[in-house]
C-alpha cells in the first residue's frame, strides 16, 4: 500500500483520525473497566473504521474497555469514543463493572479474597 511508504504519522494524528477529532463518547458515560460484549454484527460496514471492526471482534467474548484499548493500542478515551459509536449502532452492550452496579456483595468479596490467596 502506498500509505505504508509514508513515515508513521504521529500518535496524536492517528488518534484524531480514528475518532474524527472527537474526545468524548456519545451517550451515557461508562467506566474504563465496563464490560463490553458484541451483540450484533453490522449489515453494512461502511462508516465503521478498521478499529471499530477490530473492537467488535475482540468483544465477541466479554472484555473490558481497558483491555480493548490495550489490544488496539489506543488510549482509553479514544477507545471509549469508538465503543460509544458501536453502542449507538446497537452492536455492543456496555455493562457497568461490579461496584458501580452495586453487586459487590459478601459472596464476591469472599471470592476475591480466595482468588487472591490462591495466586
Amino acid at each position, binding site marked *: 500500500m502506498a500509505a505504508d511508504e509514508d513515515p508513521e504519522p504521529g500518535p496524536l494524528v492517528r488518534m484524531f483520525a480514528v475518532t474524527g477529532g472527537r474526545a468524548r463518547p456519545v451517550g451515557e458515560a461508562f*467506566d*474504563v*473497566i465496563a*464490560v463490553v460484549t458484541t451483540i450484533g454484527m453490522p449489515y453494512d460496514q461502511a462508516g465503521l473504521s478498521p478499529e471499530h471492526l477490530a473492537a467488535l471482534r475482540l468483544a465477541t467474548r466479554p472484555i473490558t474497555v481497558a483491555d480493548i484499548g490495550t489490544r488496539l493500542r489506543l*488510549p*482509553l478515551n479514544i477507545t471509549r469514543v469508538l465503543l460509544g459509536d458501536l453502542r449507538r449502532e446497537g452492536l455492543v452492550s456496555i455493562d457497568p463493572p*461490579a461496584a458501580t452496579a452495586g453487586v459487590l456483595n459478601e459472596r464476591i468479596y469472599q471470592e*476475591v479474597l480466595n482468588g487472591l*490467596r490462591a*495466586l
Partner: protein
Amino acid sequence: MDYARSDTLAIKILIAGGFGVGKTTMVSAVSEIQPLSTEELLSDRGARVDDTSGVEAKTTTTVALDFGRITLREGLWIYLFGTPGQDRFWFMWDELAIGALGAVVLADTRRLGDAFPAVDFFEQRRIPYMVAVNLFDGARRHDPAVIRRALAVPAHVPLVPCDARDRESAKEVLLTLVRHAREMSRVGAN
C-alpha cells in the same frame, strides 16, 4: 440475560501516592501482564490546568496511565490502576475512583508529605483505602504509629509496611485492602 455476560465482573483497585513512590512497581509485582501504559489523550480539561503563560494554549496533552490485571477466574478480573502522580491530573483520579473497590496509598517515609493528597482524596470521597509504607532499600524504618499520626490517618484504616517489588508482599497488601473494603461495606449496610 446471557449467562457469560451476567457472570462477568471487573473490579477496580487504585494504587495512589506521590511521584516515584513505587506505584508501577507494585502493579507489575502482582499483575499477570506487564503493566500497560496507555498514553491518555486529554482534551479541554487537561489543557486548562496547564501553565501556558505567554504560550498559545495547548488543546491536547498526554499523560501516561499504568494498569495491570489479575484474573481470579474466567470472568472475574481485578484491574490495578496506578493513578497519575502529578497533582494537576487530579481530575483523572476522580473518574478512575468512581466504582473502585478501594485504594492503596503508597507512602515513602522519606517523603511522607507526598501521600497527603491521596489520603485526603479518598477520605473526602469515602472510598475505602489503606496506607502501605514502601520500605525502599536503606529507607529508615519508622514506628507505624508515628506515620499514622503524621498522615492523620484514622485508626480504622489499615497501615502496613510493604515491599512494592515483592509479589507476596503486594498480594498481602491487596488482601488487607479487600478485607477492609468488605468491613466498610458491612458498616455502611448497618
